């Protein structure tokens, strides 16, 4: 009761269906090429137009190659999916940021950076990592394609109201410990289903002290604990980030908006269905060892000696043994990017660690900015030069090796240290073995060629 989640949700209720779901109004629908074509087909089959086309924003990101984007996509099936989005957006009168447009990038990176995702909004996308936008103080969640069609048709969605959970993280993060490590720690504590059925509000001194980029990373990973979404009450950090962005309110509208946004917080008397508290002192740089994001350890710890159903299957897939320490394990690939860690701060962190060092010869490193805006800033800050001197090249923006729908596939059996969000079997390519980690831990692996505690290099 009286949580920020209640406030935003309740304000958007169009009607409550008796013994049924809520009809919830949606402020923004984001569409990418993978989960939208069948929704557009459905609209055509029903003879419908988009109800509020100006509230729908489209961009391809999953299939986009990370090189030669100015040339036609080589894979004809990927090309068709990307072209279909452009055609559908034109037919239905929707904003479309095509490949190579300076506005393009991963949808969850672009939304906040253009000021499209604003505090107090409801936001959906056919993508489970839509929770990312919760960092802006929004109720944002992933939906299926039928639900995408619902929003296109009516700007509303039918949903059961989730329960609310608050996760408070006290203390101060240690050196070399990032928002990604916090999220990986939470997943290991809660497991991949520990927050299923809940919307999570992140709070406490650690969260308050995070930059916007760090908050976006934390909220991005809410789904990996099963949560439908996660968010952070907006504050000065949020307002400073939004101010001046393309779609941010301007002038008088800005003052009015900020005054409203300042009211967006849980009441002192707020009651959550569940409250959890953690201490930053317990969090060190984290890595995963298994085939779901909840199977994680502190980088200096050893793999547990037992787990639930599927534990052995998972270790067999990863070619690890229970009780094994992973420090010193040879790494084949390093991936920096994804909607989880493809923002400017992630590139700054990676560059800060590799500066004055050199990429290990036998490591293949893919550095993929989350958007063209991130790419531009990397160059403006001269990070491209630091990275080039250390033997790293920057690729073109997109989801890339996070789910390997383009050509960026980790070969079978190869071990990848990845800043993405999922280490499921085959996620980065059939047979690929994925270790999830922060940009600092990825950088440490990239320069040493083995799993390395980044704190030893800072």
């Amino acid at each position, binding site marked *: 009761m009286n949580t920020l989640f209640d406030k935003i949700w309740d304000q958007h209720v169009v009607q409550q269906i008796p013994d049924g*779901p809520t009809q919830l109004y949606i402020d923004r629908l984001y569409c990418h090429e993978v989960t939208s074509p069948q929704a557009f087909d459905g609209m055509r089959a029903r003879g419908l137009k988009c109800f509020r086309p100006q509230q729908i924003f489209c961009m391809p990101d999953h299939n986009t190659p990370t090189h030669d984007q100015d040339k036609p996509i080589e894979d004809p099936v990927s090309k068709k999916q990307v072209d279909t989005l452009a055609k559908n957006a034109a037919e239905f009168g929707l904003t479309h940021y095509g490949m190579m447009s300076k506005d393009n990038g991963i949808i969850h990176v672009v939304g906040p950076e253009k000021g499209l995702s604003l505090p107090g909004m409801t936001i959906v996308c056919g993508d489970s990592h*839509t929770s990312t936008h919760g960092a802006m103080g929004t109720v944002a969640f992933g939906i*299926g394609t039928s639900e995408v069609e619902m929003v296109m048709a009516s700007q509303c969605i039918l949903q059961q109201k989730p329960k609310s959970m608050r996760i408070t993280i006290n203390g101060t993060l240690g050196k070399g410990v990032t928002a990604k490590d916090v999220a990986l720690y939470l997943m290991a504590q809660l497991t991949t289903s520990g927050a299923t059925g809940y919307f999570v509000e992140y709070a406490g001194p650690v969260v308050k002290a995070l930059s916007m980029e760090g908050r976006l990373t934390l909220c991005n990973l809410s789904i990996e604990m099963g949560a439908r979404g996660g968010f952070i009450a907006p504050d000065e950090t949020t307002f400073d980030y939004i101010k001046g962005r393309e779609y941010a309110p301007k002038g008088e509208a800005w003052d009015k908006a900020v005054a409203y946004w300042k009211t967006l917080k849980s009441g002192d008397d707020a009651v959550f269905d569940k409250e959890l508290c953690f201490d930053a002192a317990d969090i060190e740089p984290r890595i995963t060892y298994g085939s779901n994001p909840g199977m994680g350890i502190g980088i200096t710890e050893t793999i547990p000696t037992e787990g639930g159903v*599927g534990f052995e299957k998972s270790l067999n897939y990863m070619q690890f043994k229970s009780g094994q320490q992973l420090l010193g394990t040879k790494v084949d690939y390093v991936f920096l990017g994804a909607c989880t860690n493809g923002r400017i701060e992630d590139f700054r962190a990676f560059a800060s660690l590799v500066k004055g060092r050199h990429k290990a010869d036998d490591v293949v490193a893919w550095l993929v900015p989350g958007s063209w805006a991130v790419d531009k800033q990397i160059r403006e800050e001269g990070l491209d030069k630091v990275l080039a001197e250390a033997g790293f090249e920057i690729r073109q923006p997109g989801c890339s090796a996070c789910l390997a729908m383009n050509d960026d596939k980790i070969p079978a059996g190869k071990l990848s240290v990845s800043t993405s969000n999922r280490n499921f079997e085959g996620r980065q390519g*059939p047979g690929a073995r994925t270790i999830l980690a922060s940009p600092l831990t990825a950088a440490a692996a990239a320069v040493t060629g083995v799993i390395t505690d980044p704190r030893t290099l800072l």
Partner: protein
Amino acid sequence: MKQKFNIITSTCVPLPLENVDTDQIIPARFLKATTREEKFFGDNLFRDWRYNADGTLNESFVLNNPTYSGCILVAGKNFGSGSSREHAAWAIAGYGFRVVISSFFADIHKNNELNNFVLPVVVSETFLSELFDTIAKDPKMEVEVDLPRQMVTNKATGRSEHFDINGYKKHCLMQGLDDIDFLVQNKDKTEAWEQANK
């Protein structure tokens, strides 16, 4: 796609694994389709478990074992975790499953199943583990899923359990209606909300 639901009685296909994620149900490389051809997705359901890396059948996987058949999939807890891809529900429906029984479903996937007229039935851990045991003993045993009464019955042991579904969704499934029909009919309410929240 749209079909009416009532009472289903069938043998089961057991998948006693936990945390079966949507990347296993349908790997990302099959998400490039721009149409909703259920046969295509059904053919690639659990693709990397059904086939070996060289493209040959993995005969040890349950879908390739002729002992098991039916339109009810029985899976371990936290079924459908991970990505929001509705393609996972299309694959399950396309393969011919009408019901998935588990002790716990991931949220988005559960909605996706319902939106594709596949019924997710949540049962207790006790019911589920007994069901796995009975299927192992007799693969030809049947389960009855009675949507009107919201009851699921293990016909080998006689154990029955009530399952939850909200009245609205139950009505939709039994009548073969979907949410878009409802929302389009309620546009006046949406416009009223917009007026009030300008």
